[in-house]
């Protein structure tokens, strides 16, 4: 099997799929290109962008960083230095007692470790002192530990097959792409960013036109903005406190003649007219020469004007030999674009356009962090070497390499990953929440984390623009999957076939451009810049020059790309409007593969697909042979992409591979999403993540804090291609319930569902909740004593019931509230060090751990695990398991955003039954349909019904009908009729109560239902007497603290309006915090009751004559006293009531 060998260690799920496809491949006239999708997913897509990005960092990024800062030289004696010759990431290991051991990620999860590999460097250094110096070399010195992304190249899981993964305790379906930090799985979310080094024409808050460039180079990061205010152009740069007329800047950069500026803008008189006010302003400032202009600028910024202009202003334009001309041209281009925008509003850039966005992936973020930490380390080492040299240590052979062994890099990386705070001062970066815990609520939910894109703005912004669906998202970002509420439309998810690019070497590309006839900028005069029939060529935001035959040039570049002479992700985009050819090879662009068509005829032919099926051809072969190429959002604008092969016209340049790939992974679970009202798909995307089911194959070996599992999860009867591609059919999260759409019992209003008790008895919707309880045994206190676990001593027989002789709860024991599960004792004295004898007769106090849970819930101790943490303390973890059957109020949902709670549970004999004796598992009210318009759900029902009767899984992939990836309703109906059902899915039903047929045919069949994690048992709460807060003596708040239910302002208002004053009195005081106080009627202050003398006393009046006793809320008494403490005297005036 060629496919298998080529696939290497990819999860074999995809292979299995291919075989299955092979057997049931439909024969069609148009080439079925679906098979390209699984092939693509083997090499790219899904979460591979994380892996690619991390691999890029490990292979290239880290080397670049180290090469750029490869020398640590002493300032005292520059001949003493350390030079890094090479850097690499080793294999993940753990060092225990000085011995390093191979480390598997699952070990890290279980024992709260960080999955790291050493960062190894080869160095060359000078050893010795003044007279004797030797050049030494050392190899494989560890300078820190790098958290390793699972399944990346340096991970032990890389290239492993299913059996090997199982041996390592890993789920083969788990996609990887995350880190294990201190035992928790952390994902670095994809960060959305505005693209760097590109001119963006926009308006600012005041409505002024601006052209801005966010420059970002290795050395500097800056933002240059040119604003147009009242017809005049200004430069606004952070380094200058005020806005500077742009002409002054131009002059300062050496373009002294206004004529030249006008020429640079182009011939059009309208442009010169628009520039005139700026020219005039410059003249009015009396600035005509570079010298004067610089002086003017120096006044604004104490004499550093030239260096600012050189290094910070438009930092992305490189300056050689202080030649600022490229910058001038860049400014001219910016000005020209602004003027175009004035003349024609369409020329404005759209910030929300996906082509103007860059996605920052984990590799880039880690690389930033590493660079910062590495540089910090270098300065530290430098200082240490200097210190070592100045100290004049007589121990002659000071070895500078020893200073490299330090923790700052390891700690810095670990801290950033575990807190999610990217606080990199060097790059003026301060981001919070970059990492998130990978919640293992459901398999699909955790996949969702890896495709999630974090927005650049804060969520609170009330703007509609960035939230709206962008047409340029097509095929790149999922149109359905976005959360509801404040982050709606800002948090996005990648589509199935999206790839995010990584940086590419730009030197060869630039010289290639010049070879292909780009006229160098240096050689052009301002006049020539914008001559008609010539296009500027911009490479990664840099103006290379111009080209006289742009289409020809673009065509040549594309040809080279298709021939794999240049990287497959390089994008060539001819912008006719701006008359620019944009070439991009930078990282973070989203792109997707498309089939190339020549004059509307697909290059992928039947025999190609056959070779793919036979395994002699891979996705990369398609790329290499120029049958398929990646297009990014910008280049898509130059393409005419047809959806299906049959719809091509001679102008068509590309054909979509499969239309369902415009959806993401999570939206891909929905059958027939294209028949649903769009918000329903969005709701399902949110709910699919909350559905219980299987987490992973290793779910029972994991020690998560909270795990929800379904006892009998099923594979959906109506599947989609996406489901098979991601493995949801193997790790399902739901059950195929036979649903009757009818009203029943009245307990089904507001989307409630009626459930069949027998179905529940037989295991429908049964779930397991596993909670972790853990305890750390402190091995060594300061006193030298340590915690200990003692065998049960029979002091409290009942509570010690489940303990084994080792003092820990035995697995399999039923645990009730207040049962002890760890019989721990702590030493009474933990402080100062004690002698051995003192330790021997140290007293211990019990500090046993007991189970806290609701009364009446019978949980079971599932597992007990012992491990050691970093400080060598023993760590005991227990998994406590609770099996629950569905009950009233548990939440269920179908895959169409139709959630509902269980309204009532009814005996099977009362349930309606069909002529064939089929009794539904649940009844759903038909009112759920008209307003929701989830036609997809109805088709799912029909399809599943046909599926169970004919024994074939039916498909419902999005937009799949024309390509055969979704069964058509007509075909389904035919199948139904063949098996004796009505074509419309409605059956004759007999009432289970009266025994007569119902007066309507009932729409009945299987629908995949998900049980959501919201269960009544976790939420229900009521209390009578209970705990109170110390400070106010009022009942506590919240379910977790067994709190009271508050009569709030609105409830109070109701009672007032109703006139139930005694009820208010009772609720707000008597049942809350009544308190008896002694009030002195004379002074109006609080007194006290002296229990010894049995009399009340006013401490202000120094007597007890006028004391009245009254009741008052304790909180009120508190307020009075607090006010008194602030020197405010509240006096009570009492009246007889």
């Amino acid at each position, binding site marked *: 099997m060629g496919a298998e060998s080529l696939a290497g260690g990819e999860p074999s799920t995809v292979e299995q799929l291919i075989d299955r496809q092979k057997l049931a491949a439909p024969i069609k006239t148009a080439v079925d290109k679906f098979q390209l999708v699984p092939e693509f997913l083997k090499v790219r897509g899904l979460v591979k962008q994380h892996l690619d990005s991390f691999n890029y960092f490990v292979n290239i990024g880290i080397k670049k960083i180290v090469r750029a800062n490869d020398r640590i030289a002493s300032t005292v004696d520059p001949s003493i230095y350390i030079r890094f010759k090479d850097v690499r990431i080793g294999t993940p290991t753990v060092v225990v007692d000085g011995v390093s051991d191979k480390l598997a990620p699952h070990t890290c999860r279980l024992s709260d470790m960080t999955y790291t590999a050493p960062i190894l460097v080869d160095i060359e250094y000078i050893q010795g002192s003044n007279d004797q110096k030797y050049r030494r070399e050392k190899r494989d010195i560890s300078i820190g530990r790098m958290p390793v992304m699972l399944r990346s190249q340096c991970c032990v899981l890389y290239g492993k097959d299913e059996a090997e993964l199982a041996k390592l305790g890993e789920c083969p379906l788990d996609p990887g792409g995350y880190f294990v930090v201190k035992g928790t799985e952390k994902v670095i979310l994809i960060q959305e960013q505005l693209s760097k080094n590109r001119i963006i024409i926009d308006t600012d808050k005041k409505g002024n036109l601006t052209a801005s460039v966010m420059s970002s180079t290795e050395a500097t990061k800056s933002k240059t903005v040119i604003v147009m205010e009242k017809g005049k152009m200004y430069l606004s740069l952070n380094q200058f406190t005020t806005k500077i007329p742009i002409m002054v800047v131009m002059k300062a950069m050496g373009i002294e003649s206004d004529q030249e500026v006008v020429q640079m803008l182009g011939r059009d008189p309208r442009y010169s007219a628009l520039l005139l006010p700026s020219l005039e302003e410059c003249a009015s400032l009396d600035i005509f020469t570079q010298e004067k202009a610089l002086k003017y600028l120096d006044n604004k910024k104490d004499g550093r004007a030239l260096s600012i202009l050189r290094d910070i202003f438009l930092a992305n334009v490189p300056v050689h030999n202080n030649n600022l001309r490229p910058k001038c041209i860049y400014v001219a281009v910016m000005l020209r674009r602004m003027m175009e925008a004035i003349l024609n509003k369409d020329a404005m850039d759209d910030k929300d356009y996906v082509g103007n966005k860059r996605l920052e992936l984990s590799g880039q973020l880690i690389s930033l962090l590493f660079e910062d930490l590495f540089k910090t380390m270098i300065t530290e080492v430098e200082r240490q070497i200097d210190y070592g040299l100045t100290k004049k240590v007589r121990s002659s052979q000071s070895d500078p390499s020893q200073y490299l062994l330090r923790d700052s890099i390891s700690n810095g990386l670990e801290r950033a990953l575990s807190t999610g705070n990217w606080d990199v001062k060097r790059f003026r970066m301060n981001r919070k929440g970059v990492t998130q815990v990978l919640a293992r609520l459901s398999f699909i939910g955790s996949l969702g984390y890896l495709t999630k894109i974090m927005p650049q703005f804060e969520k609170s912004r009330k703007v509609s623009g960035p939230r709206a669906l962008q047409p340029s998202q097509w095929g790149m970002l999922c149109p359905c999957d976005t959360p509801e509420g404040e982050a709606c439309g800002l948090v996005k998810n990648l589509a199935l076939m999206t790839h995010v690019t990584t940086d590419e070497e730009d030197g060869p590309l630039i010289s290639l451009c010049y070879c292909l006839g780009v006229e160098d900028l240096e050689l052009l005069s301002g006049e020539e810049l914008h001559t008609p029939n010539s296009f500027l060529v911009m490479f990664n935001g840099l103006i290379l020059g111009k080209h006289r035959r742009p289409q020809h040039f673009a065509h040549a570049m594309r040809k080279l790309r298709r021939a794999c002479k240049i990287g497959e992700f390089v994008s060539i985009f001819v912008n006719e409007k701006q008359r620019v050819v944009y070439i991009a090879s930078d990282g973070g662009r989203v792109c997707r593969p498309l089939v190339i068509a020549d004059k509307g005829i697909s290059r992928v032919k039947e025999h190609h697909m056959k070779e793919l099926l036979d395994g002699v051809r891979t996705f990369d072969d398609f790329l290499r042979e120029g049958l398929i190429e990646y297009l990014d959002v910008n280049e898509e604008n130059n393409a005419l992409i047809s959806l299906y092969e049959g719809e091509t016209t001679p102008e068509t340049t590309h054909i979509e591979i499969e239309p369902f790939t415009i959806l993401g992974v999570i939206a891909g679970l929905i059958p027939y999403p294209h028949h649903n009202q769009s918000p329903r798909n969005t709701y399902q995307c949110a709910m699919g993540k909350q559905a219980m089911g299987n987490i992973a194959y290793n779910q029972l070996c994991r020690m998560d804090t909270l795990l929800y599992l379904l006892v009998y999860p099923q594979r959906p009867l109506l599947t989609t291609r996406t489901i098979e591609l991601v493995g949801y059919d193997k790790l399902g999260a739901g059950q195929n319930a036979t649903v009757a759409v009818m009203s029943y019992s009245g307990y089904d209003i507001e989307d409630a569902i009626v459930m069949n008790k027998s179905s529940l008895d037989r295991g429908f919707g049964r779930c397991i909740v596993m909670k972790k309880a853990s305890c750390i045994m402190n091995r060594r206190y300061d006193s030298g004593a340590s915690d200990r676990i003692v065998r049960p001593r029979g002091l409290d027989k009942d509570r010690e019931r489940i303990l084994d002789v080792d003092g820990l709860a035995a697995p399999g024991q039923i645990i009730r509230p207040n049962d002890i599960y760890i019989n721990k004792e702590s030493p009474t004295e933990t402080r100062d060090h004690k002698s051995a004898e003192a330790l021997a007769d140290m007293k211990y106090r019990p500090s046993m751990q007991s189970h806290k849970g609701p009364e009446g819930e019978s949980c079971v101790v599932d597992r007990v695990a012992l491990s050691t943490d970093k400080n060598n303390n023993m760590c005991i973890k227990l998994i406590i398991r609770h*099996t629950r059957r569905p009950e009233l109020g548990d939440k269920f949902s179908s895959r169409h955003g139709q959630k509902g709670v269980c309204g009532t549970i009814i005996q099977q004999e009362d349930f309606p039954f069909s002529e064939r004796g089929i009794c539904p598992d649940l009844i759903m009210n038909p009112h759920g349909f008209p307003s929701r318009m989830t036609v997809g759900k109805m088709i799912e029902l029909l399809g599943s019904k046909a599926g169970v009767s004919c024994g074939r899984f039916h498909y419902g992939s999005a937009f799949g009908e024309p390509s055969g990836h979704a069964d058509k309703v007509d075909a389904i109906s035919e199948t139904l009729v063949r098996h004796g059902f009505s074509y419309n899915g409605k059956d004759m039903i007999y009432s289970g109560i009266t025994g007569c047929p119902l*007066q309507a045919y009932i729409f009945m069949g299987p629908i995949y239902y998900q049980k959501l994690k919201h269960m009544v048992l976790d939420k229900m709460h009521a209390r009578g007497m209970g705990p109170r807060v110390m400070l106010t003596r009022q009942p506590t708040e919240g379910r977790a603290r067994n709190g009271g239910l508050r009569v709030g302002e609105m409830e109070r208002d109701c009672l007032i309006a109703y006139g139930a004053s005694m009820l208010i009195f009772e609720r707000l005081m008597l049942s809350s915090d009544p308190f008896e106080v002694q009030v002195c009627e004379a002074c109006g202050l609080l007194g006290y009751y002296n229990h010894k003398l049995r009399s009340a006393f006013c401490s202000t009046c120094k007597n007890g004559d006028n004391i009245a006793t009254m009741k008052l809320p304790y909180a009120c008494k508190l307020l009075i006293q607090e006010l008194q403490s602030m020197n405010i005297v509240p006096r009570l005036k009492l009246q007889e009531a």
Partner: protein
Amino acid sequence: MNEKENKGGNNDEPNKKFSIWDLPDVPMGQLPPHLQLQKTRVVCKADAPIHTDNISYSGAYASIGVDNSVHLDLFRDNFKVNVIRLTKEDMEFDMIGIDPALANAFRRILISEVPTMAIEKVLIAYNTSVVQDEVLAHRLGLVPLKADPRLFEYLSANDTPNEKNTIVFKLHASCKRGERRTVYSEELKWLPKGSELIKEAGQADSKPTTYTSFTCSQDVLPEFSEDPISPSEDKIILAKLGSKQEIELEAHAVKGLGKTHAKWSPVATAWYRMLPEVVLLEDVEDEVAEELVRRCPDKVFDIEDIGHGKKRATVARPRDCRLCRECVRGEGWEERVELRRVKDHFIFTVESTGVLPPEVLFTEAVKILEEKCERVISELS
């Protein structure tokens, strides 16, 4: 006298001058055909079934002199049961001449009120398999047991489990190193002498007790000596074991009702359907006839030759109709074919789980209904 009937006759010629006195007398003591149809048939139209309910009020037709009350002797004469199919697991029989309420009562009793034995308590001594204890216990509970529930008593809360109310099974399955295996229900071994697990003694000196107190072994009872108690199916998967995993447990089965938990339900399901009746309202000939035959997936219609090369559709096997309504789908078809259900003819199917043969189950159900009726009578008197 009978206003309603006249209206019915009126439909033919609405415009003609009309006197009710011209109409022929409605025959007394007999329902007119359309009412008779309403009373005895459900008509399954293409969009919805009509006349579904049962007219049980004795005076429903009093105005035309028809007595609608139930007559026991009439019922006795007309009531018929024909057994169509009877196997070990299931039974299909026709129940003719009975009210749907009664037929439904049998169905309901079969599902929820015929007692059976099912595993209720599982004492797990050892379980290292991946199947959790509760889940395993739940699965065991659903295993149908071939044990006649009539020979046992209910175990009430303060009873001690003894040979009269408890059946004890043992399951001890283990898997060798490096292998995998499936545990099937056949491995449940009946312990006629009761539990073998020793209860943790309250006092150290007291005699060790087990979880049951059998006075005698169950297998000496004649009912069990030849036919030992076992799960009714051998190959029900209980659990799967991996290398070196082991399950050791004892399961105690008690008598119960399907009402309490579906595991005590003796039937997989029990249901009935009304006898289909397919009527051709007009002669369906030639192509239309062929079309009709083609439409029906259940081969209800046949074609007969009526000479002159003409063909006519006939209804050959109405009983096979599963009501897919293909024959009434589309323009004009509802005028040709009418699908009906006979209201007092029930095709009853009982699928036993194997606890008792289906016919016994049904007689048990009848007995329970009898008992209930007696209880009502005695309460009333």
